């Protein structure tokens, strides 16, 4: 059974110590505060969250770029911490958000895409050339740009190069961190189509991180919602979009502006602003903004309740027995 789990996070945590100057003690920023996720082989898991929720830190943890403060990451059943990063890079690769800074401006496309093969010592020079050209063809880039520099390409073309670089090692898992957020709408569609095609062609597993729920709905099989370093909801795509369990998810869904001129501006119903991650609210971290906040929300951190298609951390979904327990405590 372990083989079917491509990526697993076990209660992963990452804290940063923030220097507050000479007179105050250093504060602890809990960027990722106990995340457990499972990514099954061949599926796309969408991770939704706004800025400051910790999703970028999570991506770095998964790629081995940051060590976790505690908890485990398992890639194909093997512990990330115990595996040499070079070895792990053959299984899990990133695609980043900004096509303008994800490629070295001083290298040609050929050099960029061939680099992984060189680092891992794969193939002779001739074989590498062939692989690179084949890969660029797969992502839809014409041969004539292979010796160009990134500055000569458009955002969409650069993102294709980034995809080619990530896939040339035939990894199992691709961490896509906002892959289309910096692209124009028409280009976004091309890249999303490409990602979908490649997933089927190469049997990939995707972790798709995005704040854009429309993109997530289009590509993800399952969706996890992140807020202030924690997963607040994890459901199948159909069940989440049909009936969001967590009020935050509901707010995110309501914020999606579909191009329907008959509808006006949605009423989101959230109070206040994003809390300071260095002093998170007590109990459920979302309670100061939640329209459905009630008594236990301020004091007790919600347990992971099961609902249709997954689970959610919200007192609204507590069983009567759980609510009774909270009242008594």
């Amino acid at each position, binding site marked *: 059974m372990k083989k079917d789990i491509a990526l697993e996070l076990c209660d992963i945590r990452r804290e940063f110590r923030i220097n507050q100057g000479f007179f105050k003690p250093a504060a602890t920023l809990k960027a990722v505060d106990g995340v457990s996720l499972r990514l099954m082989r061949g599926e796309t898991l969408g991770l939704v969250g706004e800025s400051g929720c910790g999703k970028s830190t999570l991506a770095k943890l998964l790629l081995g770029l940051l060590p976790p403060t505690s908890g485990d990451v398992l890639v194909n059943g093997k512990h990330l911490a115990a595996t040499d990063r070079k070895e792990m890079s053959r299984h899990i690769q990133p695609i980043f958000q900004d096509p303008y800074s994800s490629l070295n401006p001083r290298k040609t496309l050929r050099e960029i895409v061939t680099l992984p093969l060189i680092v891992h010592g794969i193939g002779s020079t001739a074989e590498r050339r062939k692989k690179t050209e084949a890969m660029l063809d797969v992502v839809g880039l014409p041969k004539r740009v292979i010796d160009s520099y990134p500055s000569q390409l458009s955002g969409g073309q650069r993102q294709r190069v980034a995809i080619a670089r990530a896939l040339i090692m035939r990894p199992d898992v691709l961490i896509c961190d906002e892959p289309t957020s910096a692209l124009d709408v*028409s280009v976004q569609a091309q890249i999303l189509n490409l990602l979908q095609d490649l997933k089927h062609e190469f049997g990939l597993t995707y972790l798709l991180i995005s704040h854009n729920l429309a993109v997530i709905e289009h590509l993800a099989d399952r969706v996890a919602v992140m807020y202030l370093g924690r997963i607040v909801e994890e459901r199948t795509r159909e069940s989440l979009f049909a009936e969001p369990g967590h009020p935050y998810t509901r707010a995110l869904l309501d*914020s999606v*502006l579909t191009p329907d*001129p008959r*509808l006006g501006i949605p009423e989101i119903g959230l109070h206040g602003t994003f809390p300071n991650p260095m002093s998170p609210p007590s109990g459920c971290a979302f309670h100061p903004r939640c329209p459905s906040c009630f008594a236990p929300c301020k004091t007790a951190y919600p347990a992971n309740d099961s609902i249709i298609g997954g689970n959610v951390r919200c007192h609204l979904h507590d069983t009567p027995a759980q609510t009774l327990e909270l009242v008594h405590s």
Partner: protein
Amino acid sequence: MSLLHVENLRVDIPMGNRPTPDDMLHAVRGLTFEVERGEMLCIVGESGCGKSLTSLALMDLLPRNAKRSASRLTLDGIDMIGQSERHMCDLRGNRLAMIFQEPMTSLNPAYSIGDQLSEVLTRHHKVSRKDAIARAAQMLEKVGISNATERLRQYPHQLSGGLRQRVIIAMALMCEPDLIIADEPTTALDVTIQAQILRLIRDIQKELGLAVIFITHDLGLVARIADRVAVMYAGEIVETAPARQLFENPQHPYTRGLLASIPIPGRTRPGEALGSIPGLVPSLVGEQQGCAFRNRCAQAIAACAQDIPEVEQDGHMARCLFATPAPEPIRLRERARS
């Protein structure tokens, strides 16, 4: 009479050292549009279409090497082309105001909110500083910021992105301008804050009867707030229509292509290929002729290489030889639930 009258606005930027015709970037190519009082006009386009340059051209804030020209550019009857810089300074912030994209850098970090807000008023009108501060507090409350007097003493770095954007909106309103140009004001904000700011802009616009030119790349946003929409491509307006008509009956192939490429929960089928527009935006350096979209358009014919006239019907304008109503108007349908 319309509030803002723009006719044949052009922005040219010389690319090389010598301004030869071959080296000239024609970033904005003959824009013609009007904005009525109290109207929300959305200019929508992708990167490189010239929408930001258009907003800068209206304010006369273009980079030094850019050349602006227009047959007519009037705000409430005041000619804006021939104005000296001094007179433009009198107009800016006073009769027309601008809201920029980046809330993090639009406010000067060295001055308090109160200082920056009151300065707008004292620059243009004869008011005492005390009155200006009082009005600033009023404005902050209008944009939904509580504890106004305390906020006035704070500095930009003490506020979140959403709050800063509200302050910037308040700043734009200080002198009660006739026209506000908002250049992607919500792009840098979180999705849950975006809706709040949009609602704020819309409510204030209606309450004060302001005209707003809202520039964005987000078609969904446009659908929700616009009275009228102008679609820009490669320096030109390719389609203009009242919002409802544009979305239900897009006539220009580019507009149709854009609409087909947006994933819409509940409408586009998950996993299925999204419509996309092949090719890239053409280079605007050197002389241009004909439809700029023709090498990406499935319907292009030989005649598209000549300059295309505007086809107008019932306030719906499209710059395309094929601009006729679509066989069946596109209506948003709920996807059947499995």
